């Protein structure tokens, strides 16, 4: 096999994989179903983002699933107390891969104003967070911006490197 042929071979394989990647990312990006999940005041901004004026449905995201098994995205909207933290962790573990997390609002990011014995100082202490949306509360536009950032992140993923096909 000459070098040219080898390069052509290599190229073909890569091109094939990029197309797989594109479809793989395109469909996950286009249909992220969030789990219905609201913890505190930020939840109302999330609900507002799904309602008439901002309309999450445009991104194919109005199919809010009640069960974690069918959801792809967890929007942690609000204060995570120490009492609630085990449930949040449990719901996250019950979600089927691929799954993503958006931490919405100052409370979910860092505990916010509540520097107290009862509040978890940031949800990223217990589950991995993909996108942080700051604000108290963040406006629906900010949440939409965060969702678009998450979609961009998904677009950069590749079947070869995503963690959920690796052996544990």
């Amino acid at each position, binding site marked *: 096999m000459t070098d040219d042929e080898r390069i052509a071979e290599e190229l073909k394989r890569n091109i094939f994989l990029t197309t797989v990647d594109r*479809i*793989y990312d*395109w*469909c*996950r*990006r*286009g*249909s992220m179903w969030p789990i*219905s999940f609201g913890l505190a005041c930020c939840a109302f901004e999330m609900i507002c983002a799904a*309602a*008439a004026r901002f*309309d999450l*449905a*445009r*991104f*194919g995201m*109005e*199919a809010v*699933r*009640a*069960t974690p*098994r*069918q959801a*792809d995205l967890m929007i942690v909207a609000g204060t995570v107390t120490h009492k609630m933290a085990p449930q949040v962790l449990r719901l996250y573990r*019950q979600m*089927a*891969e*691929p799954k993503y997390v958006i931490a919405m609002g100052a409370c979910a990011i860092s505990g916010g104003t509540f520097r107290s014995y009862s509040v978890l100082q940031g949800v990223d202490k217990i589950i991995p967070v993909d996108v942080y949306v700051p604000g108290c509360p963040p406006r629906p536009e900010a949440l939409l911006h965060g969702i678009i950032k998450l979609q961009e992140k998904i677009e950069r993923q590749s079947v070869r490197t995503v963690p*959920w096909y690796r052996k544990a």
Partner: protein
Amino acid sequence: MAFVSDLFVNSWNWIAVQLARFLPPWAAELVMMFAGVVVLIAFLLFMVMLLTLLERKVVARIADRIGPNRVGPFGILQPLADTLKLIIKENTEPAQADHWVFRLAPAVAVTAALMPYAVIPLGRGMVGTDINVGVLYVVSISSLTVIAILMAGWGGCNKYSLLGGMRAVAQMFSFEVPLALCLASVVLLTGSLSLVSITEAQRELWLVLVQPVGFLLYLLCGIAEANRSPFDIPEAESELVAGYHTEYSGVRFAFFFMAEYINMFTVSAMATIMFLGGWRGPFVDQLPVLSVVYFLLKVHFLVFLMFWFRATFPRLRIDQLLSLSWKVLLPIALANLMLTALADKVAHRAGLSRMASAGLLLGSNLVLAGVAIATLYLVYERRRAPSLSRRYEIHWH
């Protein structure tokens, strides 16, 4: 032109003729049978995709939103993205699940949903087999869905899914009775159980014009039978997480999703055939290819009604739902059946013309509707809570 005027049937026959040239007759028939099954399933899958997109668009419009518009032009690729994503998604299975039952349930659900299409005529001359007990077949197959749902509820080893499964059984059995009675009055009028000849019998007059009450009852029961909102208590997320499919993810959930939409399509198709004249419409005899168009238009109109219901009405409670079926719908359906039989007999005995007997039937139906509404009003008016002004003895001057 002659070929195009009956495009689907003619191309089907053409393929059969071409096959018969180089295959023995039994092989050609076998191939055509399998081809028929494949074509039907592909058609239904396409319909499911279309319906999911339509539902999201219609409900969004009713809620003053836009609906999916980012995936593909105007969002038309949204169902494709959803399907692919569900296929990619991990298949979770609870450790304590009843594994065989858990894995089998989605397949049973889809199979039960697909089976009625063996006898449903989708256009002139476009029917799998025209068996002479078609209506009976469809009704009995639709109760298979109950078993699939019960299997799913049991298999998941989850209290919510079990509750959802139990509710689904209670609901579907109670609505099957008035539904079958409505169909029985149609069978009484057309004198046949075959879906093809029921369509034929409505050449001059759609049955909805002589059986408006039957049609409305059928539509209500059908929506409940397909577990659609406002009767979707088996999967009410405010009480039961997601009902019987709580533990399902990925492809298996997609199967249940598919079965639900196919059931919805079946209910509308049956209502179209029994009451709206099936594929009949103007110029069908000259241009048979139009029959498919008419059929799909009518079915989609009914499906649209279902979406509209879903966007408008809140969900019922389980006790309200069951008492609606047993205390309201069943008596009306029974009375409808008896009245129809009576009016039909009278019309025959008196030797009335077709139009006159249709008028008699319609009249008796309307009287029934009036009596039913009056009774309901009297019964429920007494139970209603007194109005605020009366309760607090406020007098507005």
